[in-house]
């Protein structure tokens, strides 16, 4: 009896919770979250990457939604409306857009906004960045090889000045990801000099790509620069094995053995067939 009550209670609870869920889903809009990042890649292309996500059990990307990009000063100017891709990202290319406002210090302020829909809440985010340049170069002193990085910021009237104390990360570019080998801050001249990692393998010519990166800096955002140099340890192309057990062509001894054996047997078969023909031809001779 007692257990029956318990069961009824549990079933009742489940029904209530389920019903509650149904109503909740009808009435309550889902929360969205938008984030934005300024990225300057190694081609010096500046973009704003807005990422839109929806709260389900956890945050998941929302694709095919319209994100508005504004340039913000005293008033907001709409720059563009861009749809998010399958990763939930809307990418706005800054370029030389005259609508973008730059203040006397060189700061640009942006706002991204998602309006929401019948089932989703809207969200927005602001960001301010200062443009900068990062240059990678290589030089050799005696036998030691160096990588040098120079960081400059662009002021309000487009004049450049070195950035000091900027954190720069150094990577070697791999097939799938970047391998971090150093982290350094710029000196008073906006420069960093580090030793080249001589044990790093390159491609067949020893060529490898060094990436210097400022990552999500409060002022400069993400700035990336690349340089190629043939200082890596060359990885020789392994000659494909020929005529092995695992290859298309068989080892020669195997081919010869097989041909010898088969031809020996089949030769005798042919000889015997020839004899049968001779039997047929020899019918009259006594």
């Amino acid at each position, binding site marked *: 009896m007692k257990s029956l009550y318990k069961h009824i209670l549990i079933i009742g609870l489940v029904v209530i919770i389920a019903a509650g869920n149904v109503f909740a889903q009808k009435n309550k809009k889902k929360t969205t979250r938008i*984030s*934005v*990042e300024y990225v300057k890649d190694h081609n010096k292309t500046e973009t704003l990457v807005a*990422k839109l996500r*929806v709260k*389900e059990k956890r945050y*998941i*990307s*929302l*694709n*095919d939604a319209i994100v508005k990009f504004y340039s913000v000063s005293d008033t907001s100017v709409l720059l563009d409306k861009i749809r998010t891709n*399958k*990763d*939930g990202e809307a990418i706005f290319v800054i370029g030389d857009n005259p609508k973008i406002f730059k203040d006397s210090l060189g*700061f640009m302020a942006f706002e991204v906004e998602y309006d929401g*829909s*019948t*089932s*989703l809440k809207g969200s927005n*985010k*602001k*960001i*301010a960045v200062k443009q900068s340049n990062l240059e990678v170069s290589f030089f050799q002193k005696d036998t030691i090889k160096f990588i040098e990085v120079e960081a400059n910021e662009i002021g309000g009237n487009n004049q450049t000045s070195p950035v000091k104390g900027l954190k720069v990360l150094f990577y*070697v570019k*791999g*097939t*799938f*990801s*970047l*391998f*971090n080998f150093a982290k350094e801050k710029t000196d008073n001249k906006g420069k960093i000099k580090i030793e080249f990692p001589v044990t*790093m*393998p390159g*491609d*067949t010519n020893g060529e490898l790509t060094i990436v210097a990166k400022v*990552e*999500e800096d*409060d*002022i400069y955002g993400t700035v990336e620069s690349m340089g190629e140099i043939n200082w890596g340890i060359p*990885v020789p*192309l*392994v000659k*494909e094995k020929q005529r092995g*057990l*695992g*290859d*298309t062509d068989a080892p020669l001894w195997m081919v010869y053995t097989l041909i010898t054996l088969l031809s020996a047997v089949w030769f005798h078969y042919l000889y015997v067939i020839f004899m049968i023909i001779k039997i047929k031809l020899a019918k009259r001779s006594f």
Partner: protein
Amino acid sequence: MANKKNKHSRRQFFSKTVPVAIGTIGGVGLVAQSCQQANNDEEKISLLSADGQLVEVNKSALTKVPYKPVPPDEARKGIPGKHFVMVVDLARCRNARKCVKSCDHHHQLTPDRPFIKVLRMQDNKTSAPYWMPKKCFHCDNPPCVKVCPVGATYKRSDGLVLIDNERCIGCRFCMAACPYSARVFNWGEPKHQDGDRPYSPETSIPSQVGTVEKCDFCPDMLRQNKVPHCITACPNGALYFGDRNADSVTNGSETVRLSTLLKDKAGYRYHEELGTEPNVYYLPPVDRSFPFKEAPEGQPS
């Protein structure tokens, strides 16, 4: 003035690859939801999302990702200059089985014949048990390739061992020859398959009855400079993937040098004495991230 940092994008790589899997299905699902009121009697399809949930989606809302897999003949040539390897850190595996699920999802496999198995290992009575994720080892001296009578399974210059299921005659000699039980056979007509896709040994889709299949290291992803699905699916970073020539492997969030990793953690290959020269390395289960917990009842390996 300054913006707050977004913590998620700190993990550069992770943010670029993981949500692809979750995002596609999740996004499609939501879009479908919003236009549901408009066309109520539209045809619906059920999809299995990467996290194992069934989502119902309007057929029209499904924007198919244009994908052009490499045809069988071209799939015989490896990606030049590469030699792919995998490293499995046994100390970090807690039998979460996310790799199995994402693999099943992307190869359109049913759970009864997965490419990846997570085995409960115990080397001897006194040693501690541990979980061992096992895929195809893509051996450099592959016993399966040696015995194939028609060259349907082959070794590529980039280290991959693939199967051309349009050539396979289904003799299963490769399965008998593989000491690691890496291969599965399509005993009956395969289920849940996207038959419209052109076949490629690089995707192993669609499967064909009477042919052999196995873990392929997702060469379609590798061609796009992305790691296989299982690597990014692992929540504990137990799986590393990379290029042996470049001496670097990544588990999605961190990139390390292969030689350093193997040296520091005493990496080994499973049953080295068989002479198969696998391309999957294991790091011994020492200083574990998780205490060993037995699998729940009824869970397949």
